[in-house]
């Protein structure tokens, strides 16, 4: 038989690995800074750097960790494993380079634009439309390169890791395109195509499945390659791989609405989210079992080898969070956890434990291989392991604690029926936990720096192997499956079929939940008194989005006694029909704002935005002095109104041309009242006027309805 000779390229895996570690350190550092900002608001440095306030920094942190750290981690693994699993080099080095540099360019654009305040206001999909298009292009380049490699393979069957890569690729593409439907207003400003409840559903269908198909399934693929490699043990069960792969990707896509329990989302969708989340436990655990059971007979190695130690904790954390997740999607548990630090703890068990530790394990295994040497210091790696584990614990435990304390404080009533604690009391109580969490994060980050030192030393010790020689026989045209092979091996020979089947399987859940919410009118009962925002309010809303207020403030009151008493009437689906994008939020570091309109006077807001502690002593909100200097962007009013009407918001045709007159009139009214009633002199063209107008409008429409 003729053997083909070919070379595996190690350059791209090396590049991706460096990028992964670099962005990981940056992303985690930003996380630590953001964590300290919550405990010590002075660290927002609002006077000097309005771009670094928590509301802008947090999206950079989340995006950096998800798309830069984990993203580059995925590509490191894929560019290393795929050629070896398929016995062929990557199809095109050129496309690989475009992919690499394109992705890093996107990351830089993302960081800069988010800090500058360009955001769509949708969590984990904050990037504005030009970057969205770039992402799509680079993703397609990556896809072409991966599929061309698969098609030119010398291995007849696809290994389970590659199933996961294929499903991840196609689903991420689907999620990204559907959720990023937006209408550009100008360069770097757009409105989500969907509004209110529909936007929320699409966003969390995306948000949940970004966790599934960006943080989970590709990493399962990495686990299936690197864990058996490092342990030198056979994968425990082939049929378990099949069962859990298909059930996982089918069930995962349905679970998005569990992020919206007790909200204004139609309840049938909420219930589907819960039911499918529960069914998801075992399919998720399939991956953990296959990982841990693969280590059967190698546990003595786990004690010695830091790589395996990292893998074991990673897989265990994966098992924990995939059990916790479904528990959090039970209604009564979610009532406690939603908007609280519990969710934060949950995602960090996943991000630090599963993604973090799996990446670290992979790097400790891969870098010595790439540099043809041994790890510089196993001892340092073990230190990193313990420091990292300690960091995770110190991070998670205070967050769980704070979640429960604040829950019990929030819902406490005096016997007379008054709320026992004000929101600010709860904030004061959880500050010590925020500090502990920040320390936990710092410790975890120190571990990362130890790893960087160790890996740099390792690289210096060895010499880089740019090309690895390999040989294999090409695939022959005719192939007869052995009689004992199972039906699934047919799919394993057909990558395109696998791609299509994956798409079909993930498509079902999405369609069943999204389509009726868009087409069936009863799902969002309309309220006659709900009217579009005035031009000034719309401008104010865009400032609200720009400053990332949604990172700390929800706008969705759930139907609980303690929320209704604290914030006001619970939110209704019909109230959000003109909200492009929705701003329900997912975390209440500050109070809910769904009924803030009319609760305080204009002067209260004016003083509060300048110095929050003046009106709410003990507040940890950053101050926003720049709002008092920046002028309202009147030039954009025209195109904003125009874009809104295009999406069905009922502004009269031609309103664009007179919109600024209305804006000026309303702004002058607010400024005059401030001057008359409170002796506050402020020019009516400042941004603070717009944001006051928006805040005073939120949630008030429905009151007009009850007055009638």
């Amino acid at each position, binding site marked *: 038989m003729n053997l083909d000779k070919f070379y595996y390229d190690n350059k791209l895996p090396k590049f991706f690995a460096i990028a992964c570690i670099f962005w990981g350190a940056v992303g985690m550092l930003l996380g630590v800074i953001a964590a300290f900002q919550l405990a010590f608001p002075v660290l927002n440095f609002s006077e000097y750097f309005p771009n670094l306030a928590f509301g802008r920094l947090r999206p950079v942190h989340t995006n950096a960790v998800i798309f830069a750290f984990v993203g580059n981690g995925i590509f490191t693994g894929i560019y290393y494993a795929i050629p070896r699993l398929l016995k062929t080099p990557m199809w095109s080095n050129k496309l690989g380079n475009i992919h690499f540099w394109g992705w890093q360019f996107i990351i830089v654009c993302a960081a800069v634009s988010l800090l500058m305040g360009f955001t769509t206001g949708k969590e984990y999909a904050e990037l504005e439309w030009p970057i969205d298009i770039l992402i799509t292009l680079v993703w397609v380049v990556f896809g072409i390169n991966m599929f061309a490699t698969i098609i030119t393979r010398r291995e007849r069957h696809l290994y389970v890791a590659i199933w996961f890569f294929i499903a991840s690729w196609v689903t991420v593409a689907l999620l990204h395109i559907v959720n990023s439907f937006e209408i550009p207003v100008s360069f770097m400003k757009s409105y989500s195509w969907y509004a209110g409840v529909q936007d929320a559903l699409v966003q969390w269908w995306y948000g949940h499945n970004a966790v599934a198909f960006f943080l989970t399934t590709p990493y399962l693929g990495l686990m299936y390659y690197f864990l058996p490699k490092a342990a030198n043990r056979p994968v425990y069960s082939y*049929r378990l791989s099949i069962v859990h792969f298909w059930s996982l990707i089918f069930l995962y896509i349905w679970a998005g609405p569990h992020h919206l329990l007790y909200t204004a989302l139609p309840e049938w969708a909420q219930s589907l989210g819960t039911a499918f989340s529960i*069914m998801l436990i*075992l399919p998720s655990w399939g991956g953990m079992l296959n990982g841990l059971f693969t280590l059967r007979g190698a546990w003595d190695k786990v004690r010695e080898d830091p790589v395996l130690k990292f893998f074991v904790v990673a897989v265990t954390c994966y098992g924990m969070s995939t059990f916790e997740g479904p528990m959090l999607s039970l209604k009564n548990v979610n009532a406690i956890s939603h908007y609280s630090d519990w969710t934060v703890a949950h995602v960090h068990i996943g991000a630090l434990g599963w993604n973090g530790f799996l990446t670290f394990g992979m790097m400790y295994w891969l870098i010595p291989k790439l540099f043809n040497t041994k790890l510089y210091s196993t001892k340092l790696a073990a230190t990193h392991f313990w420091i990292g584990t300690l960091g995770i614990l110190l991070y998670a435990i205070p967050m769980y604690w704070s979640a429960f304390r604040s829950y019990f404080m929030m819902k406490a009533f*005096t016997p007379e029926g008054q709320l026992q604690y004000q929101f600010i009391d709860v904030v004061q109580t959880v500050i010590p936990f925020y500090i502990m969490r920040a320390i936990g994060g710092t410790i975890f980050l120190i571990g990362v720096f130890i790893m960087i030192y160790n890996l740099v030393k390792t690289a210096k010790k060895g010499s880089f192997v740019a090309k690895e020689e390999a040989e294999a026989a090409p695939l022959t045209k005719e192939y007869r499956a052995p009689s004992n092979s199972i039906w699934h091996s047919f799919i394993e020979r057909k990558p395109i079929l696998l791609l299509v089947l994956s798409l079909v399987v993930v498509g079902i859940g999405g369609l069943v939940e999204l389509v009726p919410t868009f087409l069936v009118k009863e799902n969002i009962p309309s309220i006659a008194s709900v009217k579009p925002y005035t031009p000034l309010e719309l401008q104010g809303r865009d400032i609200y989005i720009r400053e990332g207020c949604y990172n700390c403030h929800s706008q969705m009151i759930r*139907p609980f006694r303690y929320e209704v008493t604290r914030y006001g009437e619970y939110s209704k689906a019909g109230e959000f029909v003109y909200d492009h994008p929705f701003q329900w939020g997912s975390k209440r570091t500050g109070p809910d704002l769904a009924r803030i309109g009319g609760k*305080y006077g204009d*002067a209260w807001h004016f003083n509060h935005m300048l110095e929050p502690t003046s009106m709410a002593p003990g507040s940890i909100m950053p101050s926003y002095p720049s709002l008092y200097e920046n002028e309202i962007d009147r030039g954009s009013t025209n195109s904003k109104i125009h874009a809104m009407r295009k999406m069905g918001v009922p502004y009269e045709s031609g309103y664009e041309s007179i919109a600024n007159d209305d804006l000026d009139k309303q702004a002058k009214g607010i400024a005059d009242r401030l001057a008359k009633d409170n002796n506050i002199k402020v020019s009516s063209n400042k941004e603070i006027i717009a944001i006051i107008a928006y805040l005073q409008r939120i949630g008030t429409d429905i009151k007009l309805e009850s007055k009638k």
Partner: protein
Amino acid sequence: MTKNNLKRIASCLLAIATPCFLFGAEADAAVAAAPAKSSLDINVLLTVVTLVLLLPLYISSKTFVLVAKDFAIKKKNNLVANKAIVLVAFFMFVQTTFAQATDAPVGPRSGDLFSSATTTWILIAVIALFAMLIVYFSFLTNSLIKQKSVEVVRQTVDGSNQLAKQESSWIKTVWDKMNNFKPLTEEGTIDTGHSYDGIRELDNITPPWFIAGFVGSIIFAAIYLFTYHISKTSPLQIEEYNIEMAQAEKEKAAMLLVQGNNVDENTVAMLGLPDIETGKKIFAEKCIACHAATGGSMPGGVGPNLTDEYWIHGGSLKDIFKTIKYGWVEKGMIAWKDQLSAKQIAQIASFIKSIKGSHPANAKEPQGEIYTEETGTKTTADSTATDSITVKK
């Protein structure tokens, strides 16, 4: 081996006999301690412990049976196994009859299940029995497994000695059983023959509990959807909310009735010094952001000066009470009724009355109209205003 068997039989007898002794002894003790103390909590607790212990008891006995069977098959010697199974069956029998025996006398003797000291002692006895049984089964299982591993070591002579030793822990055996593990030595028989970059794949069967759990979760999901959306027996969120609010309303009404905290804007009266002091404290906590510590606000302050004669919404005690309670939201005064009790509002109102004319430095310029105490003309306007607010609510 004979020694082991002897031991086993002896401990077995002991295990069966002890609870009977115990039960008898406790019954006697209980009869002796005639005036039984009511100890509801401890009995509830003990019952819970008893119920909780049932699970490990069941698991340990089940494991024992499994191991015994396995042992018998492996050794091709049914004798020991049969003995063991007979033993277990006997235990189960004793256990159930015993449980019935304990249940039966409780009812008639005490009338109330959770109120007599006898019950306490019975429960303690049951718990002791359960604990002993659990320990006993574990011990038995362990000894069986030890024998087995000794056999394995003997059979494999050398080479895989270590492997056999590794398997000696009974927890591990249970674990292996639960997951239906194949011994590592037989791995070759389930190799799929796949090799991807040197990664081989085994074809182990999916752990049975995995399949059971998956099916269970699907059933759960079906029931969940059924009860909420088809049979509608579980309350949807708005229904749940209404139930919660009705319950809260009821409790609140009952509380106010008992406490006499039923002050409102029509019945409020000026309070004495201690209450004014309390009012001052609450004022310092909640009100100073807008009205300053002195109550005089400041030039350009958010709230009006409360120390002068000028009032925007009336300066009588009743007016002030009402202003605090319902707020004047369009002017920036928030409604405090959900955060402060009626009594606290009365205390603050009294405090505000008490600082009238204190003329603090750096106060805000006057707003509203002069209010003089004697003009009782406002009362009618007040009551209508109150009504409209109540309607609005």
